[in-house]
């Protein structure tokens, strides 16, 4: 059945800012969808508030709205663009929820817009738990056994029938209040007793527990002719009870016989049909009782999911791309398989390799957060690896995660680890359960004991046990000979791991030299969807140690681009964006681009992005082996081989490798690793600033507490302390006194001569400014100047900012441009550089200069219509700024420093993940901002004035902006003066003010009435925390006092706001900005404009001026 001809124009809804549980996988799926729809000749309108996505690049849609994903905004877009249909199944839960809201508001009917992919009924059948349960039962599937009970006798009978443990859920309580898992009869009495009491209907649901069962997922696709294929099966190594996003997972499933797998497939297909997802992908989760094989259906996502992205990368079957084609009417047999070309997409991929995904956590960013893994997802990213065996894939995945431990045995065991306490630790799922399981086995536990403790399937544990046996052999062998090393490499051991086991081999370098001397090099196999049954035409490779390599010879000049590895806070999609841009720019001018990355969520690891894709860990060993394979095969084919390796665009991960790669002879292009290092080196950089006549805040370097104390004493408190060489402000703190400094040095860092601590004077109340620029050695181009809304001291990655700057005068801007140019030439930048300044008392201080792509590159590129990362990639390969101006990549004249009055204001706002976390006791965690980055994602708001742009940005993050109601205000003494004006405006706009005593008194004296609220600690009846918790407050403005710390009032107020999901402003500048936004929004002035219109205006204005 061919494409539908009644669809000419599709609105695609994106997923908004990156957040835990919804990361760049939806940029990957959305980008694929937009590309496909446009290739099919359809008009594509896109809405997504996230500027760091590839999908929001103007060339991926006809009209791109970087606007909030809210009902009102989407209605405006629909009214303006008049699409025929909406595709909402590729933008995660955000897009699906937006579609449901549009339906509920009657907007789809009003404008006659069809939902394609999954219709409203299907979405509801898939998402509504009760309806879904009925669907499962109707097709003969099973759900957890359960019974509704009204008395304790009924409860006890039910529990006897189901067996302990059970899950107890009181009916009709708010937010699952009173639910719990009962492991003992005492638990049953307590939880069910309370539950019956708390339930307004005296009713509890007793449900069979599937905790510890085996967990599986199927990724399925269906077309309009009702053809269904299973794209991939995924088995969770972590059992039920750990969210699949937080689990180590493996594809294909490892411990199912065909009979069990086919049963799962049958049930999955029947559910998909019954739910009625017309076309596209869906994901269904199953649990299997390891003792009996009883299979339970857990849930489904009637849309493309994170697991779909993983499955696409794991199999080479591009689910989102196919889903988009199915949505517009094609059937599976009409869509060719990209990889084989000769066969259709109507088939089920078969793998001749094993894929392992490992989640990446950042608990260190959220002190106090409970690091136990539960059914609430907490990981911020993931790494995937492919190997020919599970052992190999697992070890590659572990070293891909960019954690301190780079695989087993690369870090010493925790002090005091015993068999007993290690087994005990395994009883609670945690980040690194497999490391703990390995340790338990190594300390003498049996596979059965470890299985009993953590419920990981014995098969996986035995695989780990085999690695330990090989480890022991390596340690015990008289000589590490070829046969033994070969076995180690086949089992996935890295050179670094082997080096850790054989100290006499002189470290990782020694192992590598020995390995090369023995001719032990990896081969590269191809991901081809069909286990080699058909020829593959897509060079998507992974390394392994076997006989035959499949790297195709090519004589074109090759450039390798190193990606950014797993997402984590401080290193997210922005860097993938820059890497993808580099690929695009270099491909366009004829280079053969080679992408190396291990993050399955990204656009960079789409085999359509670069000419060649290597899904490999970003370690020195793995990267150099890819280089060698490509370089040698290129030269053998008569070409120049790899002429450049780009490391400056992927953030910290590739940068950390730059120097070693260069020393190993790889042609690093762009700014030299030495220059990057110099900019990070306090001493060298300080001397450079002196030479250039630029000023930095007083500061110094320390390698011990004594040195740190001296530096701090010299420059005066407060001081900003941080380890050198970090992204995302890891371990950065503002320290107000000597005691805290001592604590910091001993706790947060591993200070040493190689890793000094930087100490700077902290500039109170300064305006922070971010600049992105390009330099080719002869010429300089300023990309954009961003003025931070929060004061200096809040990490730039967590700060909202405006471009062009909203309060800076022409002289300051000229000064910024001049300073930045001096720095770029002084450092020797060949590509991008980001500089951070603080402006205080009319003095411009250089805070830091980073000669590499920054997190703000996509934002600046979208705000100014200039693709900075593309330009940087070209410059790295020798192009000149003049040339790029002539080509039209850069503005023909002028640059980002001379924005005229016609240029709209772009605001970047961030999404903070506080509400995902709870303390061990179950309360919210602190929501205060500081020098350590905590945000997971960002949005962009564009409009003619700051207030409107900020309002859009706020809407994009929170989905709401209170325009009336109650505001709670409690600010630190230093902010009391500045808060008066914003609160006055809020009162004028109709807000009722609640305030703590001190703040209220100041307001009262300025003629603002308020209702006094007690601080929580005073113990009176109506206090701030319970007021916020009751949901009566619409906006919280609270700034931290000078010495922030846990368990202060501010902390409790902020965490209450987090738990109640109330907008919470924690800086005085933020309060002023929020007030402006509320004012603009309440005037109802928010209008939408597409990026294409904006860019035409920006580029048109420049051309007119030229």
């Amino acid at each position, binding site marked *: 059945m061919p494409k539908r001809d009644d669809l000419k124009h599709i609105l695609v809804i994106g997923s908004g800012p990156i957040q835990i549980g919804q990361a760049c996988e939806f940029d990957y799926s959305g980008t694929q969808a937009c590309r496909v729809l446009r290739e099919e000749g359809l008009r594509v309108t896109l809405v997504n508030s996230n500027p760091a996505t590839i999908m929001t690049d103007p060339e991926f849609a006809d009209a791109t709205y970087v606007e909030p994903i809210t009902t009102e905004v989407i209605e405006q877009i629909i009214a303006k663009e008049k699409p025929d249909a909406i595709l909402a199944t590729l933008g995660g839960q955000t897009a699906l929820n937006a579609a449901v809201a549009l339906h509920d508001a009657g907007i789809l009917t009003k404008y006659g817009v069809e939902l394609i992919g999954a219709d409203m009924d299907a979405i509801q059948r898939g998402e509504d738990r009760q309806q879904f349960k009925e669907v499962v039962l109707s097709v003969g599937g099973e759900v957890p056994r359960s019974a509704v009970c009204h008395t304790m006798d009924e409860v006890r009978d039910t529990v006897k029938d189901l067996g302990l443990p059970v899950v107890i859920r009181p009916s009709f309580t708010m937010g699952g209040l009173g639910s719990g898992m009962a492991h003992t009869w005492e638990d049953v009495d307590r939880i069910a007793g309370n539950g019956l009491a708390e339930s307004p209907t005296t009713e509890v649901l007793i449900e069979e527990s599937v905790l510890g069962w085996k967990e599986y997922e199927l990724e399925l696709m269906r077309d309009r002719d009702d053809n269904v294929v299973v794209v991939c099966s995924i088995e969770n190594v972590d059992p039920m009870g750990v969210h699949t996003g937080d689990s180590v997972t493996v594809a294909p499933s490892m411990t199912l016989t065909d009979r069990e797998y086919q049963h799962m497939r049958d049930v999955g297909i029947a559910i998909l049909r019954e739910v009625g997802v017309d076309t596209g992908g869906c994901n269904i989760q199953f649990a299997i009782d390891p003792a009996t094989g009883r299979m339970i259906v857990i849930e489904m996502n009637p849309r493309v999911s994170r697991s779909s992205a993983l499955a696409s990368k794991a199999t080479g079957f591009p689910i989102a791309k196919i889903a988009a084609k199915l949505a517009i009417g094609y059937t599976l047999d009409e869509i060719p398989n990209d990889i084989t070309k000769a066969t259709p997409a109507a088939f089920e991929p078969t793998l001749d390799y094993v894929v392992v995904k490992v989640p990446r956590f950042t608990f260190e960013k959220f002190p106090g957060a409970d690091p136990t893994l539960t059914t609430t997802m907490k990981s911020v990213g993931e790494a995937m690896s492919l190997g020919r065996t599970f052992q190999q894939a697992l070890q590659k995945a572990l070293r891909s995660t960019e954690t301190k431990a780079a695989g087993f045995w690369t870090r010493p065991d925790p002090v005091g680890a015993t068999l007993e306490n290690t087994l005990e630790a395994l009883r609670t799922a945690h980040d690194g359960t497999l490391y703990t399981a390995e340790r338990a086995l190594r300390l003498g536990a049996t596979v059965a004991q470890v299985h009993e403790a953590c419920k990981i399937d*014995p098969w996986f544990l*035995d695989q780990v046990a085999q690695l330990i046996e090989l480890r022991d052999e390596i340690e015990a062998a008289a000589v590490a000979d070829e046969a033994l090393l070969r076995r180690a490499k086949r089992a996935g051991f890295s050179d670094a791991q082997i080096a850790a086991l054989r100290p006499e081999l002189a470290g990782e370098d020694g192992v590598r030299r020995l390995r090369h001397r023995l001719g032990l090099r990896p081969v590269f196999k191809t991901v081809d969807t069909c286990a080699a*049954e058909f020829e593959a035409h897509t060079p998507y490779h992974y390394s392994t140690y076997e006989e035959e390599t499949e790297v195709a010879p090519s004589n074109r000049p090759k450039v390798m681009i190193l990606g950014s590895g797993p997402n984590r806070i401080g290193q997210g999609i922005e860097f993938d964006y820059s890497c993808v841009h580099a690929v695009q720019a270099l491909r366009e001018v004829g280079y053969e681009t080679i992408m190396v990355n291990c993050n399955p969520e990204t656009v960079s690891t789409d085999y359509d992005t670069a000419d060649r894709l290597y899904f490999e860990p970003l370690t020195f060993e793995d990267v150099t082996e890819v280089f060698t394979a490509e370089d040698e095969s290129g030269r053998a084919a008569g070409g120049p081989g790899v002429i450049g390796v780009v490391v400056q665009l992927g953030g910290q991960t590739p940068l950390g490798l730059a120097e070693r790669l260069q020393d190993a002879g790889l042609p690093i292009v762009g700014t030299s690793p030495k220059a990057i290092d110099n900019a990070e080196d306090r001493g060298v950089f300080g001397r450079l600033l002196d030479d250039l006549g630029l000023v930095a805040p007083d500061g110094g370097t320390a390698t011990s507490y004594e040195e740190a104390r001296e530096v701090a004493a010299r420059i005066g408190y407060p001081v900003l302390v941080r380890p050198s060489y970090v992204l995302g402000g890891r371990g950065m703190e503002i320290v107000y006194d000597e005691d805290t400094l001592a604590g910091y040095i001993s706790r947060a860092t591993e200070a040493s001569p190689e890793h000094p601590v930087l100490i700077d004077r902290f500039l109170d109340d300064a305006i922070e400014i971010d600049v992105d620029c390009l330099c080719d050695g002869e010429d300089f181009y300023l990309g954009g100047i961003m003025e931070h809304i929060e004061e200096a001291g809040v990490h730039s990655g967590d700060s909202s900012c405006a471009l062009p700057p909203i309060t800076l005068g022409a002289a300051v801007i000229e000064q910024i441009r001049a300073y930045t140019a001096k720095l770029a030439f002084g450092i020797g930048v060949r590509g991008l550089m980001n500089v951070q300044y603080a402006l205080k008392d009319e003095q411009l201080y250089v805070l830091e200069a980073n000669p590499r792509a920054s997190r703000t590159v996509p934002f600046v590129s979208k705000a100014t219509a200039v693709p900075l990362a593309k330009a940087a990639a070209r410059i790295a390969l020798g192009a000149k700024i003049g040339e790029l101006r002539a080509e039209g990549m850069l503005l023909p004249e002028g640059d980002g420093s001379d924005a005229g009055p016609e240029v709209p204001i772009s605001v970047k706002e961030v999404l903070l993940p506080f509400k995902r976390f709870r303390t061990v006791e179950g309360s919210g965690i602190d929501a205060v901002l500081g020098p350590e980055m905590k945000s997971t994602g960002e949005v962009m708001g564009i409009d003619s004035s700051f207030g409107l742009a900020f309002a859009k940005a706020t809407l994009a993050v929170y989905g709401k902006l209170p325009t009336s109601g109650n505001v709670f205000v409690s600010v630190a003494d230093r902010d009391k003066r500045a808060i008066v004006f914003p609160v006055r405006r809020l009162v004028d706009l109709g807000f009722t003010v609640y305030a703590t005593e001190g703040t209220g008194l100041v307001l009262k004296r300025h003629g603002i009435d308020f209702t006094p609220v007690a601080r929580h600690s005073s113990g009176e009846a109506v206090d701030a925390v319970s007021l916020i918790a009751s949901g009566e407050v619409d906006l919280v403005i609270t700034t931290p006092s000078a010495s922030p710390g846990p368990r202060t009032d501010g902390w409790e107020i902020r965490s209450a706001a987090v738990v109640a999901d109330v907008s919470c402003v924690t800086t005085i500048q933020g309060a002023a900005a929020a007030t402006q936004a509320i004012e603009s929004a309440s005037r109802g002035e928010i209008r939408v404009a597409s990026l294409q219109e904006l860019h035409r205006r920006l580029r048109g204005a420049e051309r007119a001026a030229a």
Partner: protein
Amino acid sequence: MSSRAPAILVLEDGRVFRGEAFGSVGETFGEAVFNTGMTGYQETLTDPSYYGQVVAQTAPQIGNTGWNDEDDESRRIWVAGYVVRDASRITSNWRAKRGLEDELASQGVVGICEVDTRALTRHLREAGAMRVGISSRSTDAEALLAKVRATPQMAGANHVGAVTTAEPYTYEAKETRYTVAALDLGIKRNTPRRLAERGITTTVYPAEATAEQVLSQGPDAVFLSNGPGDPATADHQVALTRELLRRGVPVFGICFGNQILGRALGLETYKLKFGHRGINQPVLDRHTDKIEITSHNHGFALRAPSAAAQAGEPFDTEFGRVQVSHVCLNDDVVEGLTCLDAPAYSVQYHPEAAGGPHDADYLFDRLVELIETTKGAKADA
């Protein structure tokens, strides 16, 4: 400690793969083929159609779920040899009774593991299925190559006699509505099971049974099973089928049975370069235009008599019009025939699956329909 002995695999074109002993230690020969299923090794190994073949499994982790007492598709393992990448040393499945390697060893099946099975598969894909030898006794590749070249070719091989039942037996449905006589050319256990689900009691006959024997109990239909070897050698079964067609007995053939029905209708068979062996093959059913994901195991196929016939146009045979009713979407191989003027149809693949998806299970329903219509027609006559 790796305690396995070294082993070698030598293809008749001289390519050598090195690995380690797996299963029984010894020497074995056969036709090298690869199977791309990620599940179902127990079913594959016990599928009589693999008789005389050395099967390489493209999925790298084999043996994880061990060996159970329920999933055997026949009375024994039939493969001539087994080639895997990574053999599991433990089993993890609630139904497992023993390990795969124990089972291979106890049945005397010689295998090899730690082989670059992807390189082997790519080689077979390019060079075609060919003779192979495995030895875990000696690593002398030259000597083994000479032996490989001395073994018989698959083309022209009649293997049915080796796998068929010696005596007829009956698989009873719980409540018998129909009876079917099945000609055992290498039948799998799941076939009578799927038939019994529909109230069909199956009596299984040896491959050399005559039309009189097969029809002695007055079955409602005759089933031609799957089986090993070159269909060009199955003259007896072809003659038998022609007799059934002449008598108007409903016939349903699968795999080898499809080739026999095709030959009975006058079509030719040919050897595919490397065959279809896997459980992910897309087949288009021209009756419904639906796609089914199916289980395949065939090295030979039927050739459509003309391009028009290949495209689905009915063509004339001695027994009336016939249509190519099923084709493989990967490579357009004929995957099924339907007689438009006689009560007979067949498919080249495995509706009984085991292992593989159950998408083609409806073909057994078609047999019930065919029996009903034939009965109805007879009653009318």
